[in-house]
C-alpha cells in the first residue's frame, strides 16, 4: 500500500461523529445527558413504588432520539414544544436534575408548573421549553404559531415539536403541519414512534409504516430515522434545522424508538405486549449502543463510564433529597395566576 492509499484508507475510516462535526467533548456531554436522564427516570419509578411519588411517566428507550435532536438545537434560542416523554430532551436543553425532581414531588418551586401539573408536564421558560398540557398534540399548533411569530419578527429561531405516534392521528397535528407547510415555517416535528399509544399498536394507529410518508402530502421534507442511534437523529435534526434557517420550510422526522416501560405508573404493558417482544426491547437500549460506540472510538473508558454512572447517581440522590425537603405549594396560592397579577 502506497502512502497515498494509506491516507485514503485512514480518511475513509473517519469516525461517523467526525463527519458530523461533533467533537469528543460534545459527544461526552450528550452521553452524560442520556445517562442522567435514565438515572432520573429509573429513580422516579422507585419513588413511585415506594409510595413517595404518586404518578410517573417515562421516557426510557427514547433518550437517543431526544438527546440527538437537542444536540442540533441552540439552547435558549430554539424552542421546544415537548411532550411527556421528553425528560432527556429537557435535560439536554438545560433542565437540571433538581428541577425535574421538584416536579416529581410537586413542590412549590417546580419550574414547570409550581407543582400544579402531573410530573413530566415539562415547561422551562429560561430554556424556551413551553408549558404543555396532558392533551396530546395541542402543543403542535403552538409550535407552528411560535415559528410564525419568529418568521414574522425576522428572528433566527427554530421550533421543535415532539409527539408520540399516537398524536399523529389527532386533528391538531394535521392542522399544525398544514399551517407550517403553507408558510414554510422554521418548524420541525419529531415523532417519537415507539409502536404503542398506551396499548394501541402502530398497525391500528395508521395505515403507513412510517408517518414520515405523510410529509410529502403536506409539502414538507420528511425523514425516517433509527431513533436508537443518537448520531442518526442528530444528523437528521441538523439537516432539518439548516433547512428551517435557510427559509426552506418545515420537516417531519419519524424517529423509531423503543418504549421500555409501561405507558405510566398506572399501566402494565405485560397485559398487552407479548413477553418475547418485551425481552427483545432490552436489546435495543440506545444508551448501551452509544456507550459501545464511544468505547470503540476510544472516547470513553470503562473507568470513566463507571465514574460517570456514580456521578449521575449522586446527582440524582442530591436532587431527590433537596426536592423532597422543599416546600409544598401553599393552599393560599390556589387562586393565584388565573389572570395576570395586578391586572
Amino acid at each position, binding site marked *: 500500500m502506497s502512502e497515498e492509499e494509506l491516507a485514503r484508507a485512514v480518511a475513509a475510516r473517519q469516525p461517523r461523529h467526525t463527519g458530523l462535526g461533533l467533537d469528543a467533548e460534545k459527544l461526552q456531554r450528550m452521553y452524560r445527558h442520556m445517562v442522567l436522564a435514565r438515572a432520573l427516570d429509573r429513580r422516579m419509578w422507585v419513588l413511585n413504588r415506594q409510595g413517595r411519588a404518586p404518578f410517573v411517566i417515562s421516557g426510557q428507550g427514547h433518550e437517543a432520539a431526544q438527546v440527538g435532536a437537542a444536540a442540533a438545537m441552540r439552547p435558549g434560542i430554539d424552542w421546544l414544544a415537548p411532550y411527556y416523554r421528553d425528560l432527556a430532551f429537557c435535560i439536554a436543553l438545560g433542565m437540571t436534575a433538581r428541577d425535574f425532581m421538584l416536579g416529581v414531588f410537586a413542590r412549590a418551586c417546580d419550574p*414547570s408548573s409550581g407543582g400544579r*401539573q402531573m410530573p413530566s408536564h415539562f415547561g422551562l421558560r429560561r430554556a424556551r421549553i413551553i*408549558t404543555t398540557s396532558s392533551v396530546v398534540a395541542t402543543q403542535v399548533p*403552538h409550535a407552528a404559531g*411560535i415559528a410564525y411569530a419568529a418568521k414574522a*419578527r425576522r428572528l433566527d429561531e427554530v421550533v421543535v415539536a415532539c409527539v408520540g405516534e399516537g398524536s399523529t392521528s389527532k386533528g*391538531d397535528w394535521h392542522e399544525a403541519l398544514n*399551517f407550517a407547510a403553507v408558510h414554510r415555517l422554521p418548524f420541525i416535528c419529531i415523532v417519537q414512534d415507539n409502536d404503542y399509544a398506551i396499548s394501541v399498536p402502530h398497525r391500528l394507529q395508521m395505515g403507513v409504516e412510517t408517518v414520515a410518508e405523510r410529509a410529502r402530502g403536506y409539502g414538507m421534507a420528511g425523514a425516517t430515522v433509527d431513533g436508537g442511534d443518537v448520531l442518526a437523529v442528530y444528523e437528521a435534526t441538523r439537516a432539518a434545522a439548516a433547512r428551517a434557517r435557510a427559509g426552506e420550510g418545515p420537516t417531519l422526522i419519524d424517529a423509531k424508538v423503543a418504549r421500555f416501560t409501561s405507558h405510566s405508573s398506572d399501566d402494565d404493558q405485560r397485559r398487552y405486549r407479548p413477553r418475547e417482544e418485551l425481552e427483545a426491547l432490552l436489546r435495543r437500549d440506545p444508551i448501551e449502543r452509544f456507550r459501545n460506540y464511544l468505547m470503540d472510538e476510544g472516547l470513553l473508558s470503562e473507568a470513566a463510564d463507571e465514574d460517570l454512572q456514580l456521578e449521575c447517581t449522586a446527582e440524582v440522590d442530591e436532587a431527590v433529597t433537596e426536592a423532597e425537603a422543599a416546600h409544598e405549594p401553599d393552599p393560599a396560592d390556589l387562586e393565584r395566576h388565573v389572570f395576570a397579577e395586578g391586572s
Partner: protein
Amino acid sequence: MAVKTLIEGVREALAEEMERDERVWVLGEDVGRKGGVFLATEGLHGRFGEARVLDTPLAESAIVGVAIGAALNGLIPVAEIQFADFIHPAFDQIVSEAARIRYRSNGDWACPIVIRAPFGGGVHGGLYHSQSVEAFYAHVPGLKVVIPSTPADAKGLLKSAIRDPDPVMFFEHKKAYRLVKGEIPDGELLTPIGPAQVRREGASLTCVAWGLMVHHCLEAAEAVAADGISAEVIDLRTLRPLDTGTILRSVEKTGRALIVHEDNLTGGFGAEIAAVVAQDGFEHLDAPVTRVAAPDVPAMPFNHPQEEAFLPNPEKIAAAMRKLAVY
C-alpha cells in the same frame, strides 16, 4: 363624535391597535382580501399587508392554537372565528390551553390573545349560523368574556381586550353589526373590561342582558313605561369577570330581577346571574328571579315563523316585565 355602526366600532378598534402596535396580528378565515364575511376586517389587508392580516386554512383549532403559539413568541393575535357556531373544534385549544397557560405554568407563561366571533340569530342563519355560545366560555376560569352592545363599546372594549394580558373571548352580535348605531367618541377610547353599564334607570324591576338583547330590553322598558312600570336595564358588557356589584345594587333598589338572553334557558349564563341574585340579594327580593330565554331546543330553525318563535323579542320581554312587576 360621529354616529357609526357596531361593526365600524370593531373595525376602528382593530385598525387603531394595529397602527399603534406592530405586534398586533389579525388571523382567520377570509379576513384578508375579502375583509371577513361581515367585513369586520375590511381595509386592514390593504393597509397592513398579508403577514399581519392573514387568511388561514379552514381549521378553527389551528387558528386558535397558532394564535396561542404566536402569543408565546411575542405577537398579540386577534383571531376571528367566522361564526361562533364554528368555534367548537377550537374548544380544546381555548379551554385546555389558552385559559390554563398562565395557571399551569405558575405565572411563567401568558397567553394574550383575543378571539372574536359573531354570534346570535335573527338573520335566517339557521342552526349553524345563529348560536349563542357565551355560556360555554363564561364557565371557564382563565377566560374573560366580553359582549358589546353599542358601537362605542365595541370599539372601546375591543381595544381593551387587545391590550389585556390574558385571553379574551369577544362575541359580537351579528344582527347588531349594522342594526345598532350610536355615537363613537373621537380620540382614544379604552373601555374597561368588567364593569356593567346601566343603560336605563328605573325603580320597578332590574333587567339584565347583553348583546342585541339589551336593545330589546330597552324597547320593552319603553313599552311598559306607559303602564307605570319603571324598568332599569343593565347592559352586562362583560360576562366574566361578572360585575355582581352593579346587579346587586340595582336589585336592592328594585326588588325584582329579570334576566334576558338569546341562548337557550337551561344552563345559560342567566342561571349564574340568578344564583348570584338569589344568594347575595335574597333579602331585597320581592319576587322570584325570572328568566326570558330561548326554549330548550338544539338550535334556531331557518324558517321565519320558527326563528321568530325561538327568539326573545321586545313583546315577550315586556310581557315578562308586566308579570314580574305585579307579582
